[in-house]
């Protein structure tokens, strides 16, 4: 496969860009694999890549019911950060952030990772106390974090409304300077290309319709492109995790909700960082194309429809306009929804299951994109060794019966 470089750009320009190879092989499923990853999103492709790269498993396949880059991977707002409160989550997300920092070189694909910083705003005294606590916790875990006041925010983000008479005045923020954004579909394409290069079969238009077992052991998956035999199945299907679990006779503590996002018409550069606010509930950044990329919370109801209700959009827009009054005349260009699988403690499940050889990576809820590299890295370890890495051991399915939940939902005071 061609290596991407300035030289290859130059060389292909000379031949009118007619000689570029396909980025990955669009494979047909073989009869048997050593492992199958269900779900060709970022997390699934990353899992396959690290299985091949770190654990030498080359006879594996990723089966995807749609196409690469068609699901949540390309439906999120691309924010990457690791400033979580609890040690378990912050270590997992920090592992991910470290992988992000060298990802473009590692997979030879420019994922446009831009460490432009993320501000988590505080609007009340309690917000600020939570921010102080979280920043201190981050620092104890070796993660860069600082508390900034309203004046520092205004200097860094001139358009933001720091008026003391605002309905929810901005008192300060936590700032993680190493956080930022990445180009999300490039992440899917880049991992697909790198995994394919290592021999992984990427099978698109191949929906899993059943999980076959012999006693407690997985023996294969039924798909719309035929039966595939395997002893290890890693399920990374986000919103549809419960559907696959049902095929295997497992119950999961998940609810799938629509999560909507929006982009505006392209503007000249107005915002060179990422701003998130939990109190007014919205987050915004500006893409390299100039679009404002905006998101907020989930729709309340369970939904698999990749769309949500209008009042959720309205609520989000109110939040953004409260923060940036002069965005009020910006027109929105596109709006869409993804299906996110929310767990009771807002933390993921990266785990073995009661079925031998069946592993689940799910429950990322609204915040999975940032974890893509770390999630794949840890899940690959779990599948290859049939036991979790110490980074993802706390995120097991049995935490719901032992009671060792990781209460990131209530305590972190951060939007995901």
């Amino acid at each position, binding site marked *: 496969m061609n290596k991407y470089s300035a030289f290859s750009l130059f060389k292909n320009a000379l031949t009118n860009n007619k000689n570029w190879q396909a980025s990955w092989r669009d494979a047909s499923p073989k009869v048997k694999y050593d492992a199958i990853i269900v779900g060709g999103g970022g997390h699934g492709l990353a899992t396959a890549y690290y299985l091949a790269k770190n654990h030498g498993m080359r006879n594996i396949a990723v089966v995807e019911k749609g196409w690469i880059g068609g699901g949540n991977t390309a439906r999120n707002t691309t924010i990457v950060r690791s400033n979580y409160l609890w040690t378990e989550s912050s270590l997992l997300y920090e592992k991910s952030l470290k992988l992000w920092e060298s990802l473009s070189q590692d997979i030879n694909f420019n994922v446009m990772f831009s460490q432009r910083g993320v501000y988590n705003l505080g609007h009340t005294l309690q917000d600020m106390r939570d921010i102080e606590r979280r920043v201190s916790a981050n620092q104890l875990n070796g993660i860069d974090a600082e508390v900034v006041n309203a004046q520092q925010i205004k200097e860094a983000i001139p358009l933001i409304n720091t008026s003391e008479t605002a309905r929810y005045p901005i008192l300060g923020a936590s700032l993680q300077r190493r956080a930022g954004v990445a180009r999300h579909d490039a992440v899917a394409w880049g991992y697909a290309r790198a995994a394919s290069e290592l021999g992984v079969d990427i099978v698109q238009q191949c929906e899993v319709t059943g999980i076959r077992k012999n006693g407690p052991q997985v023996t294969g998956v039924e798909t719309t492109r035929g039966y595939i035999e395997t002893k290890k199945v890693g399920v990374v299907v986000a919103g549809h995790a419960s559907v696959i679990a049902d095929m295997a006779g497992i*119950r999961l*503590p998940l*609810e799938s909700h629509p999560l909507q996002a929006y982009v505006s018409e392209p503007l000249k550069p107005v915002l060179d960082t990422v701003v998130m606010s939990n109190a007014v509930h919205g987050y915004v950044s500006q893409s390299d194309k100039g679009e404002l990329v905006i998101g907020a919370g989930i729709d309340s*109801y*369970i939904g*698999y429809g990749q769309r949500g209700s*209008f*009042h959720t959009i309205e609520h989000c827009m109110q939040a953004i306009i409260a923060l940036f009054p002069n965005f009020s005349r910006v027109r929105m260009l596109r709006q869409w929804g993804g299906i996110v699988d929310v767990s009771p403690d807002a933390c993921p499940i990266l785990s073995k299951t009661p079925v031998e050889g069946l592993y689940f990576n799910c429950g990322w809820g609204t915040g999975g994109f940032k974890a893509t590299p770390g999630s794949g890295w840890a899940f690959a370890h779990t599948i290859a060794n049939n036991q979790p890495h110490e980074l993802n051991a706390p995120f097991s399915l049995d935490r*719901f019966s032992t009671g060792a939940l990781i209460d990131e939902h209530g305590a972190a005071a951060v939007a995901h």
Partner: protein
Amino acid sequence: MLLIKCPWCGERDETEFSYGGEAAIKRPLKPKDLNDEQWADYLFMRKNTRGLFLEQWNHSVGCRQWFLVERNTITYEIISTKRINSDALNSEVPQ
């Protein structure tokens, strides 16, 4: 936005309602007899159905009554809404 027919008040906008998730989850009659897995199953595990789904909603800024909604979670079409004490469903509803 969903248009939900409250069994008491009639059709209203979704913004008048709060979502209550899966319906007819039975609280175990003898919690002390349950092991941790069974308790976790009651407390956390959910059907999360893709397709026809029985769920509960509360008319929180209206009559404040809980009621049952049968809804398609793919198309979001509401098939029916019922009072929670209607005879057909009474046996399935947590006491």
